[in-house]
């Protein structure tokens, strides 16, 4: 069974560091119609930032390549996000996901990106092929809030 897709977007951008911020803002703008709570929005932005930063610092380590960011709003206030690169790939995904594991300690990486993505989403799926690239898919459902919040009179 698949949930209906209510809205979707795809953006492609080069793996430049300044696009970390752009990716966060693109996703937060895209999901704004769901009126996420402050903490939910912040967590989703953090998860996106982790995945995009990994493409920039690991996948395309000494080069610039394309990152594809896809987002969908699914029925039931669910946000689907997919971040894809065609970079170096990951040979051992389980090891990569282990908290504190990093291949770039000298660059002050903490090895916590996947741990953060995992704890800030309901589903995290990583598919990777060495030399071909990596796709990270995350799904996060948002809390349903009181509709009355949005219906308040604007009168003075």
């Amino acid at each position, binding site marked *: 069974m698949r949930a209906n897709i209510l809205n979707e977007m795809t953006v492609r951008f080069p793996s430049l*560091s*300044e696009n*970390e*911020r752009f990716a*966060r803002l693109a996703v937060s703008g895209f999901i704004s119609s769901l009126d996420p709570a*402050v*903490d939910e929005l*912040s*967590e989703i*932005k*953090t998860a996106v*930032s*982790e995945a995009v*930063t990994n493409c*920039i*610092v690991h996948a395309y380590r000494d080069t610039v390549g394309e990152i594809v960011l896809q987002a969908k709003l699914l029925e039931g206030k669910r946000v689907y996000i997919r971040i894809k690169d065609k970079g170096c790939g990951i040979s051992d995904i389980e090891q990569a996901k282990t908290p504190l594991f990093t291949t770039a300690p000298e*660059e*002050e*990486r*903490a090895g*916590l*990106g996947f*741990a*953060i993505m995992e*704890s800030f989403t309901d589903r995290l799926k990583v598919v990777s092929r060495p030399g071909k690239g990596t796709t990270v898919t995350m799904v996060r459902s948002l809390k349903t809030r009181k509709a009355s919040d949005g219906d308040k009179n604007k009168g003075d």
Partner: protein
Amino acid sequence: MPCKLFYDAESRSLLAELSGDIDHCSAKGLREPVDKEIMTRLPLHLILDFSGVGFMDSSGIGLIIGRYKLMNDMGGDLLITDPCPEVRKIMELAGVGRLCRVIQSGHRSFSGGVKL
């Protein structure tokens, strides 16, 4: 200006007021001026004030751990003040509290003199 630095000679404390988003892109610009000041002044205490930081990802954790190690190597310590709830959550997830104290509302004066 992503980082304002104040030094209090009496307490040998260096205060770094960080602001904006802390990610991989901005981390370098925060790291360099702070490290330069640490290596020049050799403070006993480094205070990272997070009150102006609205967003932080794991790059911020790398930044904290790196400054913790540097201060530790120089015989000093690190204190973190006033992260917003979202930033505090990332710090808790990463176990930053095991490295240094994280406190709300440091009682510091405007000039940068720090009372710990």
